[in-house]
């Protein structure tokens, strides 16, 4: 009987084979990340300048790794919580929200006061405000019925434009000297990262790692959608809250360190989804973070130290990510 023959063909496949393949791929990604880190530290260092170059590059390297982790993680969390793999926090304009909060604080407190404020304290306040805002906004957008994807894309574009114009509006209202304080941080700069905030960013990111790891199974259930998650006994609202607060924190970190990068998260998460098809949150999370490190650190090593193009990596990354976005949108439209 044909159906029995089909059954026999399918039977020898056990669940173990894809698991081993996934593990091998994650290991390869880990090795490639190490290569990227090594290249970034050593490429094009003139002989004799090591003592100066290494510590300087190491600081930048940590920043880039944090940015890679923060963007990959926030994007994947966002995908799990919103049950779509096309929208990302950046596409929904949440890095622009962070910039708006930043401009707003300059406006309300004044540039002098802002500059006098301990940068770490200021950043911590911004992160907290950002976590509250993004949690509120996301919950309002996503906790009710499933919404139409195209409506959400539209909402994201409107939010992004709104936040960006609000922050430039605020910038215009503050006097020209203050303007410089804001202006510095409105587009992605991988070669001039904000080293002041390195330690606090490192602490914040390090704090998210064990929390997310402990919750990784819950994110798998969350990704099944609200009804199924509740049916399986997931404390749905609590997990959504944690997810969006974490997304707000990670978006703040990456935006504060290098500025907004719109399509990077989409690019690296989709590479990870392709590399580990059907994998759980845990392995995919590791893979996406490693892919992000390889792309960002390796890319920056090549662009800055080999090609000598200082500010162009963000453009290339956004171009590639933008193509992924368009492809996904068009594929979604065909369905």
């Amino acid at each position, binding site marked *: 009987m044909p*159906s029995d023959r*089909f*059954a026999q063909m*399918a*039977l020898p*496949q056990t*669940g173990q084979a894809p698991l081993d393949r996934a593990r091998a791929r994650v290991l390869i990604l880990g090795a490639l990340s190490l290569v990227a880190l090594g290249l970034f530290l050593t490429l094009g260092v003139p002989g004799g300048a090591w003592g100066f170059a290494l510590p300087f590059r190491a600081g930048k390297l940590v920043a880039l790794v944090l940015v890679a982790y923060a963007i990959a993680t926030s994007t994947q969390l966002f995908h799990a919580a919103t*049950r*779509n*793999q096309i929208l990302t926090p950046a596409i929904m304009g949440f890095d622009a929200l962070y910039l708006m909060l930043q401009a707003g604080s300059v406006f309300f407190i004044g540039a002098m006061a802002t500059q006098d404020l301990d940068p770490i304290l200021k950043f911590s306040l911004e992160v907290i405000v950002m976590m509250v805002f993004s949690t509120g906004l996301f919950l309002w957008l996503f906790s009710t019925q499933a919404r139409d994807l195209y409506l959400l894309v539209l909402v994201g574009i409107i939010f992004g434009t709104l936040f960006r114009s609000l922050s430039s509006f605020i910038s215009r209202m503050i006097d020209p000297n203050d303007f410089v304080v804001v202006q510095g941080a409105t587009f992605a700069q991988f070669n001039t990262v904000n080293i002041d905030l390195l330690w606090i960013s490192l602490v914040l990111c390090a704090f998210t790692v064990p929390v997310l790891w402990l919750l*990784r*199974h*819950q994110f*798998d*259930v969350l*990704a*099944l*959608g*609200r*009804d*199924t998650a*509740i*049916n*399986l*006994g*997931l*404390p*749905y609202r609590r997990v959504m809250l944690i997810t969006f607060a974490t997304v707000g924190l990670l978006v703040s970190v990456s935006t504060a360190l290098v500025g907004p990068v719109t399509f990077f998260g989409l690019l690296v998460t989709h590479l990870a*989804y392709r590399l580990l*098809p*059907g994998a759980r949150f845990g392995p995919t999370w590791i893979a996406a973070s490693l892919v992000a490190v390889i792309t960002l650190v390796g890319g920056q090593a090549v662009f800055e130290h080999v090609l000598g193009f200082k500010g162009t990596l963000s453009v290339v990354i956004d171009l590639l990510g933008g193509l992924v976005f368009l492809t996904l949108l068009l594929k979604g439209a065909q369905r």
Partner: protein
Amino acid sequence: MIQISDVSHQISGLPILTDVTFTLPKGGITALIGPNGAGKSTLLSLMARLSKVQTGAISFDGADVSTTPTQALAKRLSILRQDNSVSARLTVEDLVGFGRYPHHKGRPNAEDHRLVQEALAAMALMPLRQRFLDELSGGQRQRAFVAMVLAQDTDYVLLDEPLNYLDMKHARQMMERLRDTAREQGKSFVIVIHDINFAAAYADRIVALKNGRLHAVGTPKDIVTRPMLKQVFDLDIIVENIRNLPVAIHQIAPFPERQEHP
């Protein structure tokens, strides 16, 4: 025992359910019938705490769904929604495996594995278990979702139109499996069924809803009658007795009593 007392539900001011009260004993199959928009799915989502109970109370063996911790409820009752989709890329086996989540919280053991295999076999999914959900036909996917709910292995199982998309063979197989499970393991199923003949053949009791109100509760013999179906569905349906089963011939209008012959 399922107790539903004085449940009313409104959505943006419109009454969807009004004063619904009934009790179902533990064990067996209850069919929930009624016209489109009667409130069957709404009632099921209230029972499964997917929507908040606004007025009234619902409890399973005394555990109120509004106050019992959701983790505890997930081991006691499960629900299949009318529309199911997942956006994550999952294999059939992985999806069914999630049914065990309330019990193992992410760390499946041998018992979990056994129950998943059992559920896959019960829904005739063994040959398809490595397939991704988006590579299945509608009926195959429906069976995968039912298998997930069965793997959850709860005392109470609420199924909203599980026969959707199924061919005759798989529809009958599914109902036979549910009936056997109910008999052998003492489980209680509440199933929304549109095909009244499936309800008559497999249900121990039938609950009829109409316009958000409870219309009748009874055995298939009580409910599947021409006058009762006329009341519930506003449709004149012939009911014949075949092999001691009421069989509704609902697809065609009743024959005129006297055919004209030339």
